[in-house]
């Protein structure tokens, strides 16, 4: 689960991590008032959406306005907020439609001496959390990793022991952080590692992490993502969820127990199992078309789930044909065939449907589909299914 920057910063503050003073505003008036309350000569107005790249991103119908802007008066803060709020912000991560900005963060400016990068993730190779820092702040870490990997420094830590002081000293040495700033780095780094473990995060990213001219380390931006599988023990975090930031069809699918990811192609897919679902996208692409979605109906799909899955797939106007690909194991093919027949009758199918079934009770299942006299194209094998659905979409 993702949260907004202002929510992430509140969590950091609670854990003693230094962040600039800031106030959330939902109208230009509130933004102007926030500037006055902060009381400084400068402030930064920052669009709050879940996607990254806001500083370089621009407002959809006003490419002169970026998602993050420095302001020097209450009047200017209100004007900038007025140009951002209620508009779509397009960044490298949002896609061309952008994301609607419902709130901005008005943040006190600070005097920056250096910009660094800090990230915490679970590293699969070392089987535990690692803290990564880089001297290249404000730059995408992917770019640094690809071009100058020697500028990234990593320290693995035990979730229950936490980051140790010697690890902070090692990292400071490598980053060239000295004197009183080391104590500031220790508070910040240890605090962030505590946040990561305490809230079962899947990522904590501070980019940029700044060293102020006064020598203090401060989180200028904050991206915090939680492990969805651990949310059952963090009920309080659920109220931070902003459904308006999520793809509505994906939210709907999740409520029905379906795993759905919207994509941009024309072939709708309904598959059982994540691996087979990914492979189905692959084989569609290999045959010259693009998938419209990833959809895993799971191990025990029933009529209600298949019906809902069809509804979600067909609601996507790009879909020109649908492929059902089921390898019936524990779930019998006859069960899924009956579900398809029932669902087909309930949902209005305006595009061709290709069905490939294999596995338990497949012969009986194919007979059910034929006997139903419904307009379903039957396929045998993955390649046949892909060819038929790609042809049907043309």
């Amino acid at each position, binding site marked *: 689960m993702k949260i907004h920057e202002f929510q992430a910063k509140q969590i950091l503050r609670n854990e003693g991590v230094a962040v600039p003073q800031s106030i959330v505003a939902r109208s230009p008036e509130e933004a102007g008032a926030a500037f006055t309350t902060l009381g400084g000569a400068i402030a930064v107005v920052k669009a709050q959406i879940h996607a990254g790249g806001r500083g370089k991103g621009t407002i959809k119908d006003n490419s002169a306005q970026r998602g993050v802007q420095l302001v020097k008066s209450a009047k200017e803060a209100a004007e900038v907020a007025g140009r951002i709020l209620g508009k779509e912000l397009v960044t490298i*991560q949002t896609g061309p439609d952008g994301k609607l900005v419902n709130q901005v963060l008005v943040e006190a400016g600070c005097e920056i001496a250096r910009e660094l990068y800090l990230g915490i993730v*679970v590293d*699969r*190779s070392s*089987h*535990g*959390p690692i803290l990564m820092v880089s001297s290249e702040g404000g730059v995408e*870490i*992917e770019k640094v*990793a*690809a071009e100058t990997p020697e500028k990234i420094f990593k320290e693995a830590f035990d*979730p*229950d022991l936490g980051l140790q002081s010697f690890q902070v000293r090692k990292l400071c040495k490598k980053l060239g952080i000295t004197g009183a700033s080391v104590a500031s780095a220790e508070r910040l780094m240890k605090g962030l590692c505590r946040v990561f*473990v305490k809230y*079962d995060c*899947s990522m904590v990213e501070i980019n940029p992490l700044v060293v102020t001219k006064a020598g203090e380390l401060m989180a200028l931006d904050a991206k915090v993502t939680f*492990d*969805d*599988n*651990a949310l*059952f*023990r963090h009920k309080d975090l659920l109220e931070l969820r902003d459904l308006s930031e999520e793809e509505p069809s994906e939210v709907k699918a999740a409520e029905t127990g379906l*795993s759905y*990811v919207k*994509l941009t192609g024309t072939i709708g897919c309904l*598959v*059982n*199992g*994540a*691996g*087979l*679902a*990914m*492979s*189905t*996208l*692959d*084989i*569609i*692409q*290999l045959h010259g078309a*693009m*998938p419209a979605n*990833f959809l*895993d109906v799971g*191990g025990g799909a029933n009529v209600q789930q298949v019906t809902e899955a069809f509804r979600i797939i067909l609601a996507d106007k790009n879909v020109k044909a649908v492929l059902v690909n089921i*390898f*019936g*194991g*524990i779930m019998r093919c006859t069960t899924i065939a009956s579900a398809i027949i029932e669902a087909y009758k309930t949902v209005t199918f305006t595009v061709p449907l290709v069905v490939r079934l*294999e*596995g*338990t009770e497949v012969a009986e299942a194919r007979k059910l589909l034929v006997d139903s006299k419904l307009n379903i194209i039957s396929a045998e*094998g*993955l*390649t046949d299914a*892909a060819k038929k659905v790609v042809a049907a979409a043309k």
Partner: protein
Amino acid sequence: MSILINKSTRVICQGITGKVGQFHTKGCKEYGTQMVGGVTPGKGGETIEGVPVFDTVAEAVEKTGANATMIFVPPAFTADAILEAVDAGIQVIIAITEGVPVLDMVRVYPRVKASKSVLIGPNCPGVITPEECKIGIMPGYIHKKGPVGVMSRSGTLTYEAVWQLSNVGLGQSTCVGLGGDPIVGTSQIELLKMYQDDPATEAIMLIGEIGGTAEEEAAAYVKEHVTKPVAAFIAGQAAPPGKRMGHAGAIISGGKGTAAEKIAALRAANIEVAESPADMGAAIVRAMKRSK
């Protein structure tokens, strides 16, 4: 021969009184697996599917001589269930449960590794040695005994591969679902080593997917240490970055974990790569021919 499990393996089910645990205990028993008991705290003394239920794994081991377990307990209790099995000295622990918090696995992992137990999963379909022992949720009848070791991060895609193998006349030594989570008990490398050492395994089918660098590490290992023919398929060539594709571990993040990188690494290790998921069976045939 085979790896991990065989006809003398004695299996219990942790979470046997749950609907899913009971269903699959029955399925495994029908396949011929020696199901010798089950564990559900507070339900000791009951009998489910003809096997005795115990309150603790330690008691089940003492009374039944179990050396393997199949875990179906809910995600919140899976770490506890795994550690209980480790504590009781169970040799092969197979955790089917999906949705275990990653940090739980971070804490469990070193304790499993410091023990004599092997953990497969979580979030996996299980392990099957055809015609001998099935521990998990896979449809037993599609498998047949033979020379190919199959290892995978997913379920239904493995069934697809096994199906294709059977269609080209190749049976399997042991099929292992390693699990779709970021941290799982056994790595591809550890499994490759077991297959390399197993006389019954003549060729290895590796089914990977996007996310992490396990396949790259496996490729490097194959190059140095595996003399048996290996074929591979990587799912997720069409997956966009930053989107989780069903499995918690199947995500391209930070520009890492793409199918293209993995395929390049596999090819560099002289592994026969199936371009299409429909080509997995044929790929293992090519790999076996090439090595002759």
